[in-house]
């Protein structure tokens, strides 16, 4: 079943300073199945975050439409959890209160919020930090809070915009492994934006390679390498060579066109 259907999405931005329109996303169509872990892979500025923001409902497409579980996306909603590039937590709330923010908005009492948040705090490995403020935690820990916050809403879809880009290499690998572990446990649909070929191949069950601006889908393919994935294995390297080939081909095409 199609969980997310992206149909002929075009997005143009108006550059007010130069008084011209910039084409950011050009006629993108993509179908994402239930429980897919899709990685949108592309260079900086290719419109992959814009595409994600449109699925989230933060931005509206210039033309085309996006459906999540058959509903046309018009505005943000708790059926789509978002994990931002920066943790984007409420700095005045503790870890537990940040994770339970959705429940507070729904009007649940403090004890109930606390009880429900605890399971997700445990799930992302932050047990013992419930009463800490974001300013007291590291970037990686804050990003875990952001993930727990999205998971708590029990959304149909989780949208992640380069959530590990600002982390050091070691923490990044840890977080990637944890994310896969969590996804395998709770089974939901994830759309994960990244510019790293390795990251996409470590995480995704489906990879959509995007082109440089204006963003188009160059190719989308299923990737079912068994887990845990070994980044030094021949199978991984074959896949990587294949993706890098696509990217290189694209770059050559652009150079010739210019």
């Amino acid at each position, binding site marked *: 079943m199609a969980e997310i259907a992206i149909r002929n999405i075009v997005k143009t931005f108006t550059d007010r300073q130069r008084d011209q329109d910039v084409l950011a996303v050009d006629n993108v169509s993509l179908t994402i199945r239930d429980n897919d872990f899709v990685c949108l892979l592309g260079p900086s500025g290719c419109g992959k975050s814009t595409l994600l923001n449109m699925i*989230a*409902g*933060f931005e509206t497409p210039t033309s085309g439409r996006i459906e999540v579980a058959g509903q046309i996306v018009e*505005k*943000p*909603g*708790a059926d*789509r*959890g*978002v994990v*931002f590039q*920066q943790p*984007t*937590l*409420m*700095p*005045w*709330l503790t870890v537990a209160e940040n994770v339970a*923010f*959705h429940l*507070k*908005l*729904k009007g649940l009492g403090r004890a109930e919020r606390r009880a429900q948040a605890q399971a997700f705090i445990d799930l992302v490995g932050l047990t013992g930090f419930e009463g800490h*403020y*974001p*300013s*007291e935690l590291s970037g990686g820990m804050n990003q875990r809070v952001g993930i727990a*916050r999205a998971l708590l*809403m029990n959304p149909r879809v989780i949208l992640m915009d380069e959530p590990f880009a600002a982390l050091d290499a070691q923490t990044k690998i840890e977080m990637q492994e944890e994310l896969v572990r969590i996804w395998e446990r709770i089974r939901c649909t994830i759309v994960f934006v990244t510019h790293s070929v390795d990251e996409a191949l470590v995480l995704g069950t489906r990879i959509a390679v995007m082109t440089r601006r204006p963003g188009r889908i160059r190719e989308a393919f299923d990737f079912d390498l068994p887990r845990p994935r070994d980044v030094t294995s021949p199978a991984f390297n074959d896949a990587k060579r294949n993706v890098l080939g696509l990217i290189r081909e694209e770059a050559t095409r652009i150079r010739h066109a210019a």
Partner: protein
Amino acid sequence: MQTASERLRAAFFPNLRWVLTKIERIAVPLLLVAVWEAFSRSGALPQALLPPPSAVLHALGDWMFGIDGSAQDYSGTWLRNALASTMRVAAGFAIAAALGIVLGTAIGWSRAIEATVEPTLQMLRPIPPVSWIPLAIIWFGIADRPAIFLVFLGAFFPVLMNTIHGVKAIDRNLIRAGAMMGASERQLLTDIVVPAALPSIFAGLRIAVGSAWMLTVTAEMVAVKSGVGYVLWDSYYFLRYDMVIAAMVSIGLLGFLSDYGIKLLMARVLRWQRTTVRRGA
């Protein structure tokens, strides 16, 4: 491990460092008061024109506690006058804070409200609050109300401007995160926008409480017959410069205390901003 001498020192001077920093802090004020006392007693100026600190303290003591009647009519009336002034500050400040935060949030949040309301406010803002005194008197008469009106004018704009700034400076993604979690527009305002703007709002409140005291004293000099400002001006007419200075000291003390109160509240409310609050800004 501590050496024996260190342990000995720790036992006898547990707070040596603390004592030293205290001395560091009060050395300059003490010296200034001593020089003032000496200069005043030297006879270079008639003592009536520059009363020594000891005389000011004497006047203040009698004004506060009615010891020997040296403050004449005002002997023992300090608390009454200080309360009168404080009530005016509190009333004007409370109205200004409530209105400033509500209106500032609305202006910072909504382009439409900004476009319709802000130009008018920006036109009123450069008019010094004290220049409203004549109108305040003819509208409100001679009593608490013109003073409260002036305090409101002086305290309103700092709160308003800082609230607008705080609301506009919010990280857009924080709002998006709220919308993603299903917040209604009202919830976005109460649960995200206002808390996020609080550090800036508190900066405005601290400026505002300073303005509030300035305007209360001014109003009391001109349009009210009670309060510390009134005592100050009345003592000036009766050439009681020791009382004038005692009133100045009282205003300084009351202003300091109200700022301290806001700082305490701020430390509680902005507990999450640990590093900045603890240093006491």
